[in-house]
């Protein structure tokens, strides 16, 4: 594979994108998980699917837009979906989780309509659903790198505020920090990272990259910063290992990445149990 990595641009793109999202998805995932918003990632990934299907339909109908990456439409839909979720969470204050099935089924519904209008499934769509190493173009890579840089800078700059908002939302509001604005920025970041990650892991599995490494990390980490550090390490092991095995064994990369993340999770649970027994 190493020789292939130097030889084929698509492999380089896939690997570099994988390394970026292997850190980025768990980084935001930590905040998503501790705020008990794990399912929002699922809802947004399905909205992203609608965006991608819409883009593929446009491509088929209007030749002019052919060649424009469906990634952008996916991002646009994801961001719009995140805004809808926020709106719904405010409308149903006592049933905030209702926003998730509404957006999730809405996304799938729209996606299926667009797919049927575009005359059904094709290989491209399959790649978006389950991830693909051959699908990342250089332009995609640059867009994803740009988004990642922006997200990392934002998370570092607003770390204190994001921590407080995650730990104790009521206290964050009472202490006078602009909690709503920060939450808004956060949800937009989640939407962008989901859209950026789906090329490699696929829409159906993208939420797992945000949650599984974090679930493993929470078991063994001390403190919040360590939780972030372990999550990123586990994310990277899953993505790099997953891409490696999927290339050699000809497996779907998304599935392989997720299976490795699940193995890490099981090991972390076992490690914690052993540690507790020894203590």
């Amino acid at each position, binding site marked *: 594979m190493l020789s292939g990595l130097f030889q084929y641009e698509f492999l380089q793109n896939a690997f570099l994108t994988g390394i970026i999202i292997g850190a980025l998805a768990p980084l935001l995932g930590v905040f998503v998980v501790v705020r008990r918003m794990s399912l929002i990632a699922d809802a947004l990934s399905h909205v992203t699917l609608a965006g991608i299907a819409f883009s593929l339909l446009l491509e088929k109908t209007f030749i002019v837009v052919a060649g424009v990456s469906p990634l952008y439409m996916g991002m646009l839909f994801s961001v719009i979906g995140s805004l809808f979720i926020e709106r719904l969470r405010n409308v149903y204050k006592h049933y905030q989780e209702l926003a998730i099935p509404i957006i999730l089924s809405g996304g799938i519904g729209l996606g299926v309509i667009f797919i049927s209008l575009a005359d059904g499934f094709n290989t491209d769509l399959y790649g978006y659903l389950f991830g693909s190493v051959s699908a990342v173009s250089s332009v995609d890579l640059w867009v994803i790198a740009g988004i990642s840089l922006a997200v990392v800078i934002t998370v570092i*700059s607003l770390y204190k505020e994001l*921590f407080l908002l995650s*730990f104790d939302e009521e206290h964050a509001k*009472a202490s006078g920090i602009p909690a709503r604005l920060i939450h808004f920025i956060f949800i937009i970041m989640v939407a962008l990272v989901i859209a950026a990650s789906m090329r490699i892991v696929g829409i159906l599995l993208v939420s797992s990259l945000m949650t599984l490494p974090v679930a493993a990390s929470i078991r063994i980490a001390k403190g*919040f*910063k360590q*939780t972030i550090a372990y999550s990123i390490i586990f994310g990277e092991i899953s993505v790099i290992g997953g891409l490696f095995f999927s290339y050699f064994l000809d497996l779907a990369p998304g599935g392989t990445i997720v299976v490795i993340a699940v193995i890490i999770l099981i090991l972390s649970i076992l490690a914690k149990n052993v540690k507790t027994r020894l203590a």
Partner: protein
Amino acid sequence: MHEPSNRMIIKVDNLSYKYEKENVLEHVSMAVPAGAFLALVGPNGSGKSTLLKLLLGLLRPQQGTIELFGRDIRSFKAWDKIGFVSQKANSFNSGFPATVFEVVSSGLTKKIGLFKFLRSEHRKKVMKALESVGMDAFATRNIGELSGGQQQRVFIARALVSDPELLILDEPTVGVDAQHVSQFYDLLYMLNRKLKITLLLVTHDVGPITDKTTHVACLNKFLHFHGNAEEYRELDDKELSSIYGHGVQLISHNH
């Protein structure tokens, strides 16, 4: 006897609030002088939480006015002068992966300001706040590993770390085992008398602390009583019943 000053930290004038059609607070007027330790007492649903939310700026007054540190709440900006300790059970996820140090340093978020980081002077402040509540030895432990009473001390430290002049506590002993409740009140007493922090303690059980507070206010939609702690102790059962709406007796806890 501990004498609060004449400077008013909180001044509430003719405050009313309703959710949809239900009146929760009606014509409430009260004042809390600097250095006071006020217990705000009332049964469930008496409007205590609503009054707190109004004082913390989480709700806007519909009628009447609130002044904090001599300034109308609508133009009040110095929120770092106010520390808040909420009911732990309601607002805290005990599985949250944060150390005691991280939790207390989050109390400096507003003071440090946007786009700035924790510096060594802030770290010292965090340790000092932990020392003042006797929890400095637990700085590197995860918050979820501590007992209810210890966690609540950590939340006090978080509120103290920004050097507040006023500390508002919303039923802080919920979830703290009975054995540690009196220790907890001793800590509040120390903060009020030694560190000169004005305290507003919301509680439904005023018995154990009437000897520590300087003032008591009884709320049940209306403010039924607002005076110093001695006057409160002199209230008879009949008067207390009219406040609470059912038969009550003031029980002195001897801890």
